[in-house]
């Protein structure tokens, strides 16, 4: 017995030696090389907490920090990678303890207290003019930077469409349903829905909401939360939206709630499924699975009036009453390195960084005047942009935030799963739930 114990200890020590060898080669924190002779500038360490796991995203982070330290050689970065699920939790815990990172990203619409408590450094200056979408508060101040332009639309496998004999993407809801029938006849699943990762359901609804509700009722989200309007008193066509959501659910692969986002992407890549309804980070993800995927995108055709079915993105508030904090990357206002952190945020909003972002992550940058040829999927969008045919949903808030989001999506799932699909009852339930949360 003694011998075996000794063995265990020796093994443990042996492994510590091994790891000691290993760790000296590890340098997970990219450090700025101090230019010899820069003795006047004190080294500033910028702490950036993020939740980016894919290689493409990490490459963007690495290049961004590299480029920035070229501009400011006295700056070092301390990166902390978190899991996306825990990110907000840890951010809030650290804030509570007074240990906030200098740079982080947050959805300020769901967490306005960040601004109200003075945690967000104000972002000003001409760099804002380089951006396509800038969130401004009611007082006209900007607290967070969007580095990416999110395009909520339908992404499709062009080969699958061709196989089903669909010559061009549907431009109305009727055409969309026709296309789904054609696809089914060709043995192809119309939509791949990976709802086990629940955020994909949220995003699918964003895609449907943006052009149908967001474009015309900028304050719908806030009004529902403040109970100025109700679901039952449906002035915005939400009931029709419900029907579309369930149609898509019914025309997805089997067991959408049990299918992961990853699996859904696999289905799209292989052509077993034709469409995924999500946001513009999809092509980048797909490329890591299949660099040659033949993807395209078209606007969500919610209406039977084709002229209403255009690509749509966020924009300046149409009614200044609805101005919202938005979300994205921000600098901690109470950090001793606030000024440098803000400079880094400005750099993230630059055209140069936009190019790095697009090249690496294959997502749409929020910077203006960038070439759109980095990802063929977005060709249709680029065309629409040059033809000035892209709509804006202004400052429409996609997420309800907090417990509202939870009760909202819970009720939607209940609705999709129910056999009776009683939309009126769902609207009543939604109102009851929102009333309850509003009281808390």
């Amino acid at each position, binding site marked *: *017995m003694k011998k*075996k*114990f000794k*063995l*265990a200890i020796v*093994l*443990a020590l042996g*492994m*510590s030696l*091994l*790891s*000691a*060898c*290993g*760790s000296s*080669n*590890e340098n*997970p*924190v990219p450090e700025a090389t101090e230019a010899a002779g820069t003795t006047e500038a004190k080294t500033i360490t910028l702490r950036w907490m993020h*939740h980016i*796991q*894919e*290689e493409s995203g990490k490459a963007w982070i690495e290049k961004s920090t590299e480029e920035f330290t070229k501009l400011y050689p006295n700056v070092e970065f*301390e*990166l*902390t*990678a*978190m*899991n*996306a*699920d*825990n990110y907000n939790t*840890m951010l809030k*815990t*650290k804030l*509570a*303890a*007074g*240990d906030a990172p200098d740079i982080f990203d947050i959805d300020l619409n769901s967490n306005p207290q960040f601004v109200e408590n003075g945690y967000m450094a104000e972002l000003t200056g001409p760099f804002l003019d380089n951006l396509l979408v800038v969130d401004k508060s009611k007082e006209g101040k900007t607290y967070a930077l969007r580095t990416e332009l999110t395009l909520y639309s339908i992404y499709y496998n062009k080969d699958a469409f061709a196989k089903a004999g669909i010559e061009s993407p549907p431009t109305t809801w009727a055409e969309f349903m026709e296309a789904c029938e054609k696809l089914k006849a060709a043995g192809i699943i119309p939509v791949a829905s990976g709802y086990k*990762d629940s*955020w994909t359901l949220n995003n699918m609804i964003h895609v449907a909401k943006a052009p149908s509700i967001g474009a015309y009722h900028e304050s719908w989200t806030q009004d529902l939360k403040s109970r100025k309007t109700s679901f039952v008193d449906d002035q915005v066509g939400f009931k029709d939206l419900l029907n579309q959501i369930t149609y898509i659910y019914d025309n997805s692969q089997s067991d959408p709630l049990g299918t992961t*986002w*990853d699996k859904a*992407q*696999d289905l799209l890549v*292989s052509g077993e499924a034709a469409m995924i309804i999500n946001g513009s980070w999809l092509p980048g*993800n797909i490329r*890591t*699975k299949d660099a040659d995927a033949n993807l395209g995108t078209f606007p969500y055709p919610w209406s039977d009036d084709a002229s209403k079915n255009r690509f749509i993105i966020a924009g300046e508030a149409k009614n200044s009453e609805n101005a919202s904090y938005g979300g994205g990357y921000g600098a901690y206002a109470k950090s001793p390195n606030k000024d440098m952190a803000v400079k880094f945020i400005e750099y993230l909003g630059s055209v140069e960084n936009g190019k790095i972002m697009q090249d690496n992550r294959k997502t749409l940058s929020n910077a203006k005047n960038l070439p759109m040829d980095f990802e063929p999927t977005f060709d249709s969008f680029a065309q629409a942009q040059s033809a000035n045919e892209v709509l804006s949903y202004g400052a429409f808030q996609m997420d309800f935030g907090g417990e509202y989001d939870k009760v909202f999506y819970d009720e939607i799932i209940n609705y999709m799963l129910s056999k009776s699909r009683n939309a009126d009852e769902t609207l009543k339930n939604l109102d009851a739930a929102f009333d309850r949360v509003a009281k808390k």
Partner: protein
Amino acid sequence: MTARGNVGKWFMVAAMWLLAIVFIAPFYIAIVTSLKSPAESALSGISLPQVLHFENYVEALKMSSFFLALKNSLIFTIVSVILIVFCSSSAAYIIARNLNKRYYRFWEKIFLAAIMLPFEVIMIPTYKFLYEVDLINTLAGAIMVKVGLSIPFAIFMYIGFIKSIPRELEESAKIDGAGPIRTFWQIVFPLLQTITSSLIALQMMWTWNDFNVSLILLQKDAVKTIPLQQFIFFGQYTSNFNLAFASAIVSMIPIYLFFGIAQKYIVSGLTAGAVKG
């Protein structure tokens, strides 16, 4: 043994084999997936790999700063366990020998209740406190928290065992003039060998796999432990299960190596503690 008895036994053995297969199946899946390519996995989840893609392991090791996390896990685990054994054995001894006094009964009850304390209750205050004393993102701070959280259960195990040790040995030591400290460490503690070895084995396992404490207290890359590094690796955007599983298997190897050796002690210690109740 009657013929009936034989058939009965045959069924039982067959049932045991079936259960063993069910129990080991997830490991099979993990290993098999880690050696496949994403395309192969997409085709079938349970098939054996056509080609052994060992490069998954190389990739995983590169991407997840494994050796640094290994070092942190080793320090975190070994130091914690030593402290846990030291503190809980001595504390349990004094409590078990003084249960006639209210003061010690009080602590016994407190520790028992502490075993059931869910972590969320103290998560934020713990973080805040450690930040205030500048121990955040330090292995030392995390070790102190882990030890404090693990002691209650260890004391519980020790008390049960100590109660069954006759006091005569300690009485004779006292007569020989030994003070209480010497009495404990030189006489009683060696008698606790079985329970100590299994406590060490159990705590090693639990501390190695610790997640709650590491998540909130060890976030900087320099101090991350293996479970946390694993967790961050598997985000909701994991698009390469094969890599993820390879990384998972690599992180399992140290604990299973240890476990293979220590299994005997875990079994013997748990059993001893259990019977004494």
